[in-house]
């Protein structure tokens, strides 16, 4: 297992320059106008001189660009994400948002895998049958739909028309609670965004599993296993499945990245108090420190997800040279 440790270390070492590059790009974007204070002033028009001075000091506008970057980076690495221009430290605000976002994203990915893998296999095993065509058609509609638009329709139907579910937020701000108590209230709130997110990732996963499975089922070892009398069920769910899922693992890792990237739209639609929604709110009022902080946190999460994915892949496929 020494080589595994070696691999993990190498993977993490490789992540460092990537993270630095991401930080540089993010920093440059916010400084593209010259200095960030100009941007802030576009959002907040009536600053008094004292406030302006405070903001200028905060962004070290008198220092050259690279000094500003390193000062920001140094803070970042110490875990200090800066101060919101309105109130409180970014780090303090961000933690509950991370929780909310993950509360939605992780179950969505897991549910999509749990449902998507069997459907993908079923569809591949009955290629060109009616049920396969139904599945592939639904899936291609699924990937062609902007998540938030699906969300809007869900709100139209289930909140505005049927009035079964709440359309906004993660919890009702005050009683009456949905369906009786505070827990069922939260459940009522999460159902819609979670279903929408699951459906969209499900579509992508079903397509991946199906095509990967089709490829795998054509391989010689599947035929050889069947010819040695192993049951169809075992051939499918032991041999073919593992071979079909292994390449998909990488893609699922990347999907997680896109999902997080898609968080702003989805969370805004449902008013879900996660990183994405707060990003949109902060960006709209140009609260730059918060925006920067959220961007870096999302990047770090995606990076971590990628490392985990690579590790899972390496553990699943003995041919990967660690």
């Amino acid at each position, binding site marked *: 297992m020494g080589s595994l440790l*070696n691999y993990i*270390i*190498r993977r993490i*070492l490789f992540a460092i320059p990537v993270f630095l590059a991401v930080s540089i790009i993010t920093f440059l974007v916010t400084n593209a106008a010259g200095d960030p204070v100009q941007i802030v002033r576009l959002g907040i028009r009536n600053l008094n001189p004292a406030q302006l001075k405070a903001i200028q000091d905060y962004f070290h506008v008198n220092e050259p660009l690279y000094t500003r970057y390193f000062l920001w980076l140094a803070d970042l690495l110490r875990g200090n994400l800066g101060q919101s221009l309105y109130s409180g430290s970014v780090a303090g605000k961000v933690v509950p948002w991370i929780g909310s976002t993950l509360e939605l994203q992780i179950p969505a990915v897991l549910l999509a895998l749990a449902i998507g893998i069997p459907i993908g296999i079923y569809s591949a095993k009955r290629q060109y049958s009616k049920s396969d065509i139904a599945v592939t058609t639904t899936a291609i509609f699924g990937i062609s739909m902007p998540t938030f638009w699906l969300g809007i329709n869900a709100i139209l139907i289930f909140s505005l028309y049927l009035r079964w579910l709440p359309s906004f937020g993660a919890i009702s701000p005050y009683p009456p609670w949905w369906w009786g108590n505070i827990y069922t209230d939260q459940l009522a709130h999460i159902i819609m965004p979670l279903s929408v997110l699951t459906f969209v990732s499900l579509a992508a996963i079903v397509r991946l599993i199906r095509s990967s499975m089709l490829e795998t089922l054509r391989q010689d070892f599947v035929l050889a296993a069947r010819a040695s009398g192993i049951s169809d069920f075992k051939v499918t769910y032991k041999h073919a499945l593992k071979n079909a899922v292994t390449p998909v693992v990488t893609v699922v890792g990347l999907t997680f990245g896109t999902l997080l990237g898609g968080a702003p739209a989805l969370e805004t639609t449902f008013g879900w108090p996660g990183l994405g929604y707060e990003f949109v709110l902060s960006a709209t009022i140009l609260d730059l420190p918060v925006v920067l902080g959220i961007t870096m946190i999302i990047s770090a999460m995606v990076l971590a997800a990628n490392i985990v994915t690579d590790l899972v892949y390496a553990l699943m496929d003995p041919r990967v*040279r*660690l």
Partner: protein
Amino acid sequence: MEGAGIEGVVLMPATLLEVKDLVKYFPVYERGILIKKKVGDVHAVDGVSFDVAKGETMGLVGESGCGKTTAGKAILDLIPKDSGQVLFEGKDVHETFEHGSNEDRKAMRRGMQMVFQNPYGSLDPRMTVFDIISEAFIIHRHVPKSEWKERVYTLLKLVGLEEYHAERYPHEFSGGQRQRISIARALATEPKFIVADEPVSSLDVSVRAQILTLLQSLQQRETISFLYISHDLSSVRQISQRVIVMYLGKIMEYADVDRIFDHPLNPYTVALLSAVPVPDLERKVNKILLAGDVPSPINPPPGCRFNPRCPYATDICKQAEPPLRQLESDHLVACHHAEKLM
């Protein structure tokens, strides 16, 4: 065979290609934490010398990983060699491609061509047969444009295809036909020497003979020299005048075709020959079954490379590498115990 008379040597045809101590290693790396570490070399071609006469077919046989394809490509300078020298008509091939004038380089390329193993990968799927064959005319301008069509048709006929095939695409042909196209492309430059790398190994049995007889007739009619690379000893016997047997990058034996097939002097050649099934019930030979697999060409065994599998191996075989010795006229063997087989 022009030239032979001038030199006054009638029986010894002039040398066309000379390979001297050719070496090609491929480094093997292992990943460290940050940088790759070199852990060894694949000794693909490890000091190979031979020559090919004008109008001669030299067979190069060996099992997978013995370096035969690498040797063929290194001779044509399609991959860079590590050391050694290849002389084509007396001129250094690598030197010419590296430092020669544009004309010299082109002349050298024209003179030497290659026919590849895989009839499916060796033709550009997006070009018609006409474009594939006439590409040589575009590059070398040795045929005026007005004659291209005529020349392509002549070449197609020469390899046994029809004129109307010229406007088709490779995917419309069978494996054997593609191999014919491949040969026509090689012939388009009017080469003196062709490396044929396993040209029939991926073809159906009934089609193999077509391509083999085509190559044979080309060699005779057009006086082209071939380096015929193959793992199939039967086809090598059929087509070659002289034969080289390679094992893990080294020449094991090098002789006239009948001598090597009828009186092999290297235990490896003997085993190799006895392993080939013969479609004849009356011929029963004692099989020499070799133990074990062909070893990895990465860091091959010391001494004679064949010693771990050789039934004749003694201590000296594990210590000293046997030199390629001449035991009979035109019969070279690299074995400490070759005399025992005489």
